[in-house]
């Protein structure tokens, strides 16, 4: 008897992929509506993939750690929980480190692209601010979804991660566009 069947994998995965696609599509629509800002600062395009990619990685790691901890019974409730608190602190510290690194690289990229030092610094700050806000919001969604999926018995790998990463896409695009608009004035 085969363990896996093509039909079953398709049947279980396709609906959630379409839901995730719909959510990510709104991130695309937000980008499309801001095409003038992107023309003014094309580096936005370059920044959006690392911002969303890292945000998704960090929150997927947190999501898997939390769902594993929930299944082993080391995390039980939302408030005053040490394991949850430590996981959140670890996630926060990792994001802080990796986004400083990425922001530094974008400072260099902006200079090479011919931006003056002051504007390159502003853009670097906009990227860093956007990523920190995006991480905070997506982290909150991850924790909430991990608990909800555990209570409702949804599969963490097939449901929580796709939905979290798609929400992360929308949050990341929104934060980057707002930060660049506010700080760079385009």
């Amino acid at each position, binding site marked *: 008897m085969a363990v896996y069947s093509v039909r079953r*994998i398709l049947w279980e995965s*396709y609906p959630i992929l379409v839901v995730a696609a719909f959510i990510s599509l709104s991130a695309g629509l937000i980008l499309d509506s801001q095409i003038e800002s992107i023309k003014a600062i094309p580096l936005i395009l370059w920044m959006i993939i690392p911002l969303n990619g890292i945000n998704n990685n960090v929150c997927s790691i947190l999501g898997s750690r939390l769902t594993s901890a929930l299944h082993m019974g080391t995390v039980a409730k939302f408030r005053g929980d040490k*394991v949850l608190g430590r996981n959140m*602190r670890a996630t926060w510290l990792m994001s802080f480190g990796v986004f400083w690194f990425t922001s530094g690289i974008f400072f260099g990229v902006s200079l090479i692209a011919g931006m003056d030092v002051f504007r390159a610094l502003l853009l670097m700050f906009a990227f860093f601010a956007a990523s920190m806000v995006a991480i905070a919001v997506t982290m909150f969604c991850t924790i909430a979804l991990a608990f909800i999926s555990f209570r409702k018995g949804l599969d963490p790998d097939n449901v929580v991660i796709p939905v979290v990463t798609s929400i992360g896409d929308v949050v990341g695009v929104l934060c980057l566009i707002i930060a660049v608009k506010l700080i760079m004035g385009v």
Partner: protein
Amino acid sequence: MPRSVVNVKAVVMQGLAVLVICAIIEIIAGNFLEKLKESLTVTIPVLIVMIPPLLALRGNINGALASRLGTALHTGVIEAKISFSGELKTNLTASLILSFLASATIGILSAVVGALVGKTVNFASILGIAIIAGMVSGIILAVLTVVIAVTSFRKGWDPDNITAPLMATIGDLVTMVSIFLVVIVGA
């Protein structure tokens, strides 16, 4: 045994090393998107709308494939050598069919939504880019996923902290390069 269940310092140090490598790969992927700025902002309307869903799709399909393979390896359903056995074949076939169906769905959705918000949409080129880029990256990544899942199982890498982020990141790069090539060759 460590005193606490979660050792913040160990998690952060291991996680940071992986994330910095991922960040470098993501920055290279981002550069390909920036190179497409003419197509994205001027020549191919609506293309930008489907970039986030196409990237997300890759991560989702291969993330699920990697975690199914990881489970299968740990339970002995699939052996830790690269051979095209029955269960592996089923998993790969399912992932490729999913890639095709979901890429086409994203192409159609993007074109329809684009038309609804009043863009002039070249339906054929949007659908073509979605399906061809989706399938090219899907095939490359299916192979890479199997290789990485087996390698990480053999080397004992943590599937949550190392394999999953690495897969998602390589997925972004391969998908971005595929979209880039399809747009450049098609134009």
